[in-house]
């Protein structure tokens, strides 16, 4: 009955193998079933009626004509559902004093952003629901809308007049208060006297996660449990919140996230559409389905980024940093979603980057506007922080007159200094910035490209070369739970897994993380195969169904491997422990004499041995299991890490700027990432490629733009420019491996690293190309128009371009709100968020 066959016995370890992903066959052949593929008997379809206004009072809603349409079952409005819909949750308060309006799933008397749901049509077909939705007659009285972030801070127009303010929270972190460093104001005063003081303001434009599969929900209320299929990253959260918000016993709710087509944080949410589909199913007693259109997805699914970042960096004349002050304005949009309010604060500990700042202060003003609410988007807080620090370190290099790499070397934490307590109160456990940078520069041909750049500058070549550097770190795997509690988060940071031995020797692994493209089935199979000594193919990883993997905290923040993987590891180890006790009994040996290798227990000095599969079968029939032991090998484990993991790396980008058009062409991109131990190099490579492109997209292409009335202009992929493979180049991705000391496998997160690192590398390259033209910033996305105008701002050839002063800009503390970034010129379109700077 040996099922642990010889295939893996003695074979090379699975960890480190370039395994092709198990899940891809069903995914890329279209054989899987997405939520929108669900068809249930008697199923009804929903269509949403959404507000075209950014801010308005609903004076009346007439649903009679819609209700009279053929096959329309019901039309629900805010008035109908006011008492039962509850308020959507905000799970992470920025401060205990935080204020926020109630967050209804369907607006009751006012709408606060264009795209907010005002009525729900339920019909027998999706087409009939859509047709009837067009006939719901809503009268609005338009109210003044505040769209611009700086305007919101001025507070003269309120997004929610009842709240009396646009300021949701004012968060402060100061190294003096935390006893992690000195006074920033002192450092600034000293730099102003006798050092270098840099003051810069950067714009993090609003982005849209733009996952491949639009969100879809299918709810079946006909059984004992309400079964909710939803295209989400967080099925366990959704189950809890359905119970809490709608008052349905949690035990009567089963949530299933089947295969999910991407999320990027955009599906880390408990959505109005989920609530409304559940309500519709309960009202009608029939299965109900809602699938958003791409336009709805772009307009109403949460957005990301959208901040103004003011940085004041103090340094000595040689470029040794002495202090960093960060002042943020963060756009919440109209409501607080699941973690909306804390997203900027996830960057609060990261603005110091890999550098040894002795003094640090971070402040953030969370502001409401009449726009789609913002929330997690790949990196969530850390890309903003990394962008700002990596940009301003380049400015410091320019000010000191040294290479951007040199200024970093003068300030970064050296590998001998780990573990390192940072000025932002974190302990970086491990890393080697020198090694990653050396490897990256060699691979890149850094000196040669610098020489080419000089040649092009000397020759006044219309095509200039820019070289951008990003030496980043980030924090992955939010934990431990105790720390999260101290920060005001209502959830935890642990993860759970179950390992079950089936009678035939196959293995089932239940995970609490919820993959939506990451390849957990493959990576976790590799870990378990090594741990149990069973073939990779014999491990089945189950996830995404709260009735199968009952406990879990789902997938986001690059946590699945470093937190979830450790739970899997611990559960597998418990299985081996149990099996060992049984093996000793069955082979009449002492456990001390047993050794476990390649899935087999052997008794030292004898020929006796038993495979794990044989023991599993013994447990199945239970004939020989002693009375004091349970007849099972199955085990579960909950892992709560001691700390984050801190991946780091050096990304280098070379690009060509066509100074005649402002057009940008990528030339070379090298990354050397240290993500600790690599379980599957193919998956890591995929994460980095996709991540880098997503970061490039922020630097060069993507921006969510609203017009003056608050309508999203970039409301389709015609205007919201998501790049394709045709727009990028092949990247060279290499690694250094400095294992994390905070988990047993030594792994660090990789899901967001590429995105966090690449944006500043690209913008630094653009600015580097343009420095001879007196340019020290270009606003993202660096469109050809913005680049062209930045180049020609001084010679008058740029049409309407403002000069890019700023190096010598006035001090922020002189109530300076000038926007000195290129691209912040008078030719920006209405609604392009430069508001009070004009």
């Amino acid at each position, binding site marked *: 009955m040996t099922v642990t066959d010889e295939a893996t016995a003695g074979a090379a370890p699975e960890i480190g193998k370039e395994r092709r992903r198990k899940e891809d066959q069903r995914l890329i052949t279209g054989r899987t079933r997405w939520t929108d593929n669900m068809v249930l008997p008697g199923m009804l379809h929903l269509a949403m009626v959404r507000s075209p206004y950014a801010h308005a009072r609903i004076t009346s809603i007439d649903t009679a004509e819609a209700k009279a349409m053929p096959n329309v079952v019901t039309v629900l409005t805010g008035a109908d559902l006011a008492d039962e819909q509850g308020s959507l949750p905000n799970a992470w308060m920025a401060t205990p004093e935080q204020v926020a309006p109630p967050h209804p799933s369907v607006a009751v008397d006012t709408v606060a952003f264009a795209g907010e749901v005002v009525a729900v049509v339920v019909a027998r077909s999706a087409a009939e629901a859509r047709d009837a939705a067009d006939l719901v007659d809503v009268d609005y009285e338009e109210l003044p809308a505040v769209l611009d972030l700086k305007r919101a801070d001025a507070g003269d127009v309120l997004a929610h007049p009842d709240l009396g303010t646009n300021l949701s929270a004012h968060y402060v972190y100061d190294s003096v208060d935390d006893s992690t460093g000195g006074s920033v104001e002192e450092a600034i005063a000293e730099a102003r006297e006798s050092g270098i003081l840099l003051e810069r303001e950067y714009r993090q434009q609003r982005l849209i996660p733009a996952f491949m599969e639009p969100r879809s929900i299918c709810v079946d209320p006909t059984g004992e449990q309400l079964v909710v299929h939803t295209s989400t990253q967080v099925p366990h959260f959704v189950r809890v919140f359905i119970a809490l918000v709608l008052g349905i016993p949690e035990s009567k709710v089963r949530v299933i996230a089947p295969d999910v087509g991407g999320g990027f944080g955009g599906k880390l949410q408990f959505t109005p559409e989920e609530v409304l589909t559940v309500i519709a199913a309960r009202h009608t007693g029939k299965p109900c389905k809602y699938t958003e259109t791409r336009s709805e997805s772009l307009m109403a699914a949460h957005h990301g980024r959208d901040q103004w970042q003011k940085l004041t960096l103090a340094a000595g004349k040689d470029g040794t940093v002495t202090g960093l002050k960060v002042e943020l304005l963060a756009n919440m949009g109209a409501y607080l979603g699941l973690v909306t309010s804390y997203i900027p604060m996830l960057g609060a500990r990261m603005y110091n980057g890999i550098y040894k700042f002795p003094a640090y202060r971070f402040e953030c003003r969370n502001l409401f506007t009449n726009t789609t609410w913002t929330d997690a988007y790949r990196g969530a807080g850390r890309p903003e922080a990394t962008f700002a620090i990596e940009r301003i370190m380049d400015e410091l290099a320019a000010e000191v007159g040294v290479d951007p790499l040199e200024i970093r070397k003068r300030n970064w934490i050296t590998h001998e200094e780990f573990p390192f307590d940072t000025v932002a109160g974190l302990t970086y456990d491990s890393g080697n910035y020198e090694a990653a940078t050396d490897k990256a520069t060699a691979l890149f041909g850094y000196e040669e490209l610098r020489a080419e750049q000089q040649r092009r500058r000397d020759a006044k070549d219309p095509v200039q070369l820019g070289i951008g550097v990003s030496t980043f770190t980030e924090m992955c795997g939010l934990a431990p739970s105790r720390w999260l509690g101290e920060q005001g988060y209502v959830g935890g940071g642990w993860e759970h897994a179950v390992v079950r031995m089936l009678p035939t020797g196959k293995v089932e692994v239940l995970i609490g993380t919820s993959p939506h493209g990451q390849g957990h089935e493959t990576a976790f199979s590799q870990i378990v195969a090594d741990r149990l000594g069973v073939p990779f193919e014999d491990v089945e990883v189950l996830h995404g169904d709260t009735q199968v993997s009952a406990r879990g905290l789902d997938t986001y923040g690059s946590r699945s491997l470093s937190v979830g993987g450790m739970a899997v590891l611990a559960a597998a180890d418990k299985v081996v422990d149990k099996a060992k006790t049984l093996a000793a009994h069955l082979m009449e040996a002492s456990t001390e004499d047993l050794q476990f290798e390649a899935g087999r227990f052997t008794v030292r000095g004898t020929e006796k041995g038993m495979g794990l599969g044989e023991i599993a079968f013994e447990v199945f029939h239970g004939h020989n299991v002693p009375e004091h032991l349970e007849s099972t090998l199955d085990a579960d484990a909950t892992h709560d890490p001691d700390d984050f993991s801190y991946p780091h790396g050096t990304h280098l980008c070379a690009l060509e700027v066509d100074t005649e058009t402002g057009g940008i062409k990528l030339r070379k991109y090298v990354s050397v990432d240290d993500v600790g131990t690599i379980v599957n190099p193919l998956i890591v490579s995929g994460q980095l490629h996709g991540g880098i492109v997503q970061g490039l997209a922020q630097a060069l292409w993507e921006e969510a733009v609203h017009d003056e009335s608050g309508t999203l202009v970039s409301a389709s992929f015609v205007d919201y420019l998501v790049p394709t493979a045709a727009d990028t180049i092949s990247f060279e991705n290499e690694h250094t491996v400095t294992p994390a000391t905070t988990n047993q496998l030594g792994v660090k997160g990789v899901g967001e690293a590429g995105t966090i690192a690449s944006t500043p590398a690209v913008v630094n390259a653009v600015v580097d190309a343009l420095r001879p033209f007196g340019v020290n910033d270009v606003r993202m996305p660096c*469109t050809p128009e913005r680049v062209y105008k930045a180049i020609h701002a001084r010679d008058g050839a740029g049409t309407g371009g403002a000069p890019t002063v700023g190096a010598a800009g006035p001090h922020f503390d002189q109530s300076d709100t000038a926007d000195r970034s290129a691209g912040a010129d008078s030719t920006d379109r209405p609604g392009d968020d430069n508001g009070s700077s004009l």
Partner: protein
Amino acid sequence: MIPAQFEYVAPTTLEDALQALADAGDDAKIIAGGQSLLPVLRMRLNAPDVVIDLGRIESLRGVRDDGDAIVVGAMTRHADVLTDPLVRENAFVITKAVEVLADPQVRHRGTFGGALAHADPAGDLGAPALALDAEFVVAGPRGTRTVAAEDFFVDLFTTALEENEILTEVRIPKRAGWGAHYEKFVRVAHQWPIVAVAAAVKVDGGTIREARVGLTNMGSTPLRARAVEQALVGQPATDEAVRAAAASAAEGTDPPSDLNGDADYRRHLATVLTRRAVLAAAGA
């Protein structure tokens, strides 16, 4: 997204299509490859009662030689135009434009006539058709008429086609031996051009004898850069001479301002892209 309901008609002859169009009155839309119409219907920006599909009318497909001109059937797919030897030999600038038109999926569904009749000023085919003095053959209830390219494009999404007419084919005078280039400026590959320039030149012994330059997305219709054309004649195909001629590329244009750039920036781009297009066409 789900379009509003419409009646769908798929005639197999041109006569039946014209009849269907006449029967439907003013609430009909013709669908060719559907690459522009379907998004419009799905976003409910238009809700016609009847959609008439020309896809089953074989006579509207293909490219043929007609003496001093080549004739491209209105329903010929971009992918077929791209590989057609007659087009390549006699109207090379069309080949160059189709090469960069949208993406492979669109090129295999979209049609030559459909794109031109849609008359999007940012469409890639208008400027080359205009530059080559193409003639548009139009069938209607009273027979067939021919419209010069100059007269075909009337305004934004508006052509000389009457509501009861169908574009059947496009005649393009042969220009064998001319050099051609289509210089398209985009931020991402699948985007409509921010500005593009179609150039076709006849070069003899290093001198430009004749030149045709069309502009994409520089006004409410495709435009001819006549001042540039005239300035190029008799000039050597050198950077200096072409640069001087191209400086007037934006004369008389009225480009749009949008997220990709304002009108002034587009005027500037037109001069740079014109120079590059002409130089590439001249093989310089």
